[in-house]
C-alpha cells in the first residue's frame, strides 16, 4: 500500500507552521512524518524531542519532522527507505507553490499517494492577499485546490468576519470544507483522515471540533462499487471524509476507499484487511443515520431482514 500524503498549502503567514506545531503536540494516532520547508520556523516542544540529527528530528511519539533540503523526491525516497516508514506524511508546500502541481508531484511519487489538500487561510488577510496584484492569483489557486480549508486567526477578527470570510471562500470553492483552526488546531481525523480498520474514538466533548460526528459502518456483504460511487459523488458538503475497506462485489477484491470532500478513489487493499468504513461529518446525528442507510443500500446483497 502507498503512503498517503496530506498536502498543507497556503500563502506566507497563513498559519501552516502553527498547524504543524499543533499537530505534533496533539500526539497523532499514527506514525507521522512531517516534511517542512524551513526547519527554523517549526518550534517543537523540547519535551517531545527524542533525538535530532541534522535535518531530522525524531519525536518521542514516533513521529519524525524533516526539512525538504533540495528536492522533494529525495526526501520522500528517504522516508520510504527508512527502517520504520511513516504511515502518513504531512507535506508543507512552499508558500508560492502551485498546489495542483505539488499535489501531482508528491501524490504520484512512487510509493506515495495524495490523501488531501489542506489550505491554510488567514482570516485577517486572505481576502486582501487574494486581491494583490502579485500574489492574488496564487492565493486564489490555493483556495480553489483545497479539499479542506483551515481558517486561522479567526479569534483575532471582529464577530461576523469569520462567517463572511467563510462565505467568500465558498464562493471560490464550494466543495471544500471550511473549518476553524484556533491556534492551528485541526481535528486529527479531519486533517489526516480516520485510521481505516481501527475505528478511532469519537471526538472528545471538550475538543474544539465537537461539532464533528463520526459514523462507523461495517458492510456485511460485498459492495457494488457503481452504487457506492454514485452515493459518494452525491454526498452533501457536510460529509468531509470517508475511509475504509470493503469487498468489491464485482471482483471479490478487498478494496480501500478514501474520500475527501467530493474527491474519492478506490485502490487495491490487502486481503487481510477487515471490512469497515469510517465517515466524518458535521451536522445533526440524524443525518448520520441517513448516511448509514444509504451505505447499506450499496451492498450487492441487501440483508433480507432489513428490507
Amino acid at each position: 500500500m502507498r503512503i498517503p500524503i496530506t498536502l498543507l498549502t497556503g500563502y506566507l503567514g497563513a498559519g501552516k507552521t502553527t498547524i504543524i506545531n499543533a499537530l505534533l503536540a496533539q500526539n497523532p494516532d499514527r506514525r507521522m512524518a512531517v516534511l517542512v520547508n524551513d526547519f527554523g520556523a517549526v518550534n517543537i516542544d523540547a519535551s517531545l524531542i527524542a533525538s535530532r540529527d541534522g535535518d531530522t528530528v525524531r519525536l518521542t511519539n514516533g513521529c519524525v519532522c524533516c526539512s525538504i533540503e533540495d528536492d522533494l523526491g529525495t526526501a520522500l525516497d528517504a522516508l520510504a527507505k527508512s527502517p520504520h516508514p511513516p504511515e502518513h506524511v504531512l507535506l508543507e508546500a512552499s508558500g508560492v507553490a502551485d498546489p495542483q502541481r505539488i499535489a501531482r508531484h508528491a501524490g504520484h511519487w512512487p510509493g506515495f499517494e495524495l490523501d488531501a489538500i489542506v489550505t491554510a487561510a488567514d482570516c485577517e488577510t486572505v481576502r486582501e492577499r487574494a486581491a494583490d496584484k502579485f500574489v492574488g492569483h496564487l492565493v486564489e489557486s490555493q483556495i480553489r485546490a483545497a479539499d479542506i480549508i483551515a481558517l486561522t486567526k479567526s479569534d483575532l477578527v471582529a464577530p461576523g468576519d469569520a462567517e463572511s470570510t467563510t462565505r467568500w471562500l465558498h464562493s471560490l470553492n464550494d466543495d471544500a470544507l471550511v473549518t476553524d483552526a484556533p491556534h492551528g488546531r485541526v481535528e486529527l481525523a479531519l486533517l489526516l483522515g480516520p485510521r481505516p480498520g481501527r475505528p478511532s474514538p469519537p471526538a472528545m466533548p471538550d475538543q474544539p471540533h465537537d461539532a464533528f460526528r463520526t459514523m462507523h459502518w461495517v458492510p456485511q456483504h460485498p459492495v457494488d462499487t457503481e452504487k457506492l460511487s454514485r452515493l459518494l459523488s452525491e454526498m452533501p458538503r457536510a460529509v468531509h471524509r470517508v475511509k475504509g475497506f470493503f469487498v468489491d462485489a464485482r471482483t471479490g477484491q478487498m478494496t480501500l476507499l478514501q474520500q475527501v470532500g467530493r474527491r474519492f478513489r478506490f485502490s487495491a487493499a490487502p486481503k487481510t484487511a477487515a471490512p469497515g468504513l469510517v465517515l466524518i461529518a458535521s451536522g445533526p446525528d440524524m443525518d448520520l443515520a441517513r448516511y448509514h442507510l444509504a451505505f447499506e443500500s450499496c451492498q450487492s446483497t441487501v440483508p433480507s431482514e432489513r428490507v
Partner: protein
Amino acid sequence: MSEITVYTARKIRTMNPSMPEATAVAVRDGRIVEAGSLETLKPWLDAYPHKVDTRFEKHVLMPGFIDPHLHPSLGAILLPCHFITAMTWHLPDRVSPPVTSHEDYVARLREIETSMADPDELLLTWGYHKIWHGIVDRTVLNDISATRPIIVWQRSFHEVIANDAAIDWMKLDRAELERHPQIDLASGRFFETGLAVATKSMNPYLFAPERFGKGLELVKKAIHFGGHTTIGELAYPLINDELEWDILANTIEQDDVPFRMRLVPRGAGPGETDKAVERVNGFQSRKTHRLSFGNGVKLFSDGGFFAELMQMQPPGFIDGHHGEWMTAPERLEALARAFWNEGKQIHVHCTGDMGLELALAILEKLQFERPRFNHRFTIEHFGASTPEQARRIKDLGAIVSANVYYLHELGEAYWRQSIGYERASQMARLGTLESLGVTTALHSDFTMAPALPLNSAWVAVNRLSESGTVLAPEERISLDSAMRAITIDAAYMLGMEDEIGSIRAGKMADFTVLEADPWETAPEDLKDIPIWGTVFEGEPFPLGER
C-alpha cells in the same frame, strides 16, 4: 619583476573611450603597462627590458570577453550529451549542425546509435523540439533500438522521452509509472512532475564523477572557445557548496585554464534573513587566484523563460496559464532589504514583466527607505518588459544583464503560441535601454544560450529570429553598445571594471584575439568572426584545432 612583453596587432579595440584604438600593448606580470603604439610606449620600453611579440600582426585585439551570467555546473551535465539541435551549436569538440525535420532527426539519432560501441550504453541526446522534429515517441525510439536505452531530452529540459529499454533501465515499477498523470508510458513521455521521477533514475548517471568531470573539461573548453577570459557564476552553489567548491577549485584553478570566475552566491536559504546575510558574507573571504566572490548576491523573482513560467502582467498568456514566483514576493522584499542595507549589489532574476514589476517595486521602496548611489541593482535576464519599466530602471539607478538570445530562439515561437507578436517581438528591450543610457550587459545563462559573446552581440545588433525575421528593429542596439555589453559593461555588472573589461594601463592583460575587426564586419556576420584564441593575464592561449 619580469620582462615587458609588447604585443603588436593590426588593431587594438581598447573599449576605453578616451583612446578607442591602439596598435601595441605592453604587458608585465599579467597586467597591462600601457596601450598605444610602439612610439607612445617608448618611455616604458626605454626604461625596462622588453621583447616585442608580433604574432598578432594580422589580428584584432579586444579586451577579453566577459559573460557575467552562466552556470558551469549545468553545462557540465549537458555537454557530454549527444546534441541534435534545430539551431547550429558550435561546441569546442564538435559542431551540432541544424537538424530541422523529423526524418533528419531520426536519421541522425540512428547514426549515433550505430556509432556507439557498447550495445548497452545509454544514449542520451539533447535538443529535441517538437516544432522542428515532429513526434518522436517511444515507438520511434524502439524502432531505432529495441535493446539500447535511448533517452531524448527536450530542448527546454522539461521533458524526456524514453524507449522501452530506457524505461527498463530506469528500474522503476511500471505500475507506479502508469498511474502518473504526467507520465505517458504509451508515448514514453515523462514531463513536468513526471520528469522528476525519470530524473531520479538519471541522476546517478548524470552526476557520476567521471561523466561530470568530463563535462567540466568540456565547459572549460567551451568558455575558452567563446573567447571569454572572465565569467560570472550567478547562483552559487547549484546544490552543494562543499562538493562544488572542491570540484571548481580543482578544475578551474589550473595553470592551463585561461579564465577567471566571479561567483555570486544565492541569497535565499533556510532561516531568517539575518542568517542569509551572514551566510552570504561568509563567502566573501574565500578566494583563489581564479575564483573569487565579490559583493554580489543573487535573488530570484519569477519562473523560467524557456519553461514559460515567467510572470506576465495582463493580458498574460494566450492559453491563460500563469507563471510562478521563485520566491514569495514578501520574502524577496525582506531578503532584498537585508542585503540592500548591508550594502550588497543585488542581482535579481526577472523574466516576465510582472517579475520585473515586483523587482522595481521593491527597489523603489528600498530607495525611499535608504537611498543608495552606485548600488548596481541588476535586472538579470530581462525577458518581457514595458517601455515604462525601462524608464523606471533608469530612474532608480538599476542596470541590466540581458539574455538577448531569448529573442532569437523563442521570439517567433512565443509570438505564435505564447504571448502574441507585440510583446514577443519586444522581448529584450535593449534599444530603449540604450537610448536611456542604462548600463547593459549581455549574457548567455549557458546552457540556456550558447556561451558565445559574439553570438549574443549579433542578436542584440540584428534582432533576427530563428527564421530570419527582424523582430522590433527599433530595439536593435549599436555595435558599440553591443561590444561594451560583452566587455566593459559586463565587467561593471560583476563589480570588476577596475580590473578587466577594457585595455588600459593597470588592468589585467586579458585579450580576445579576433581574425577580423567587428567594426569592419557586416553586422549580420558578427557571429561568424573567427576567434584565434585569448590572452589571459599576459599569456597567449590559442584555440588550436577543433
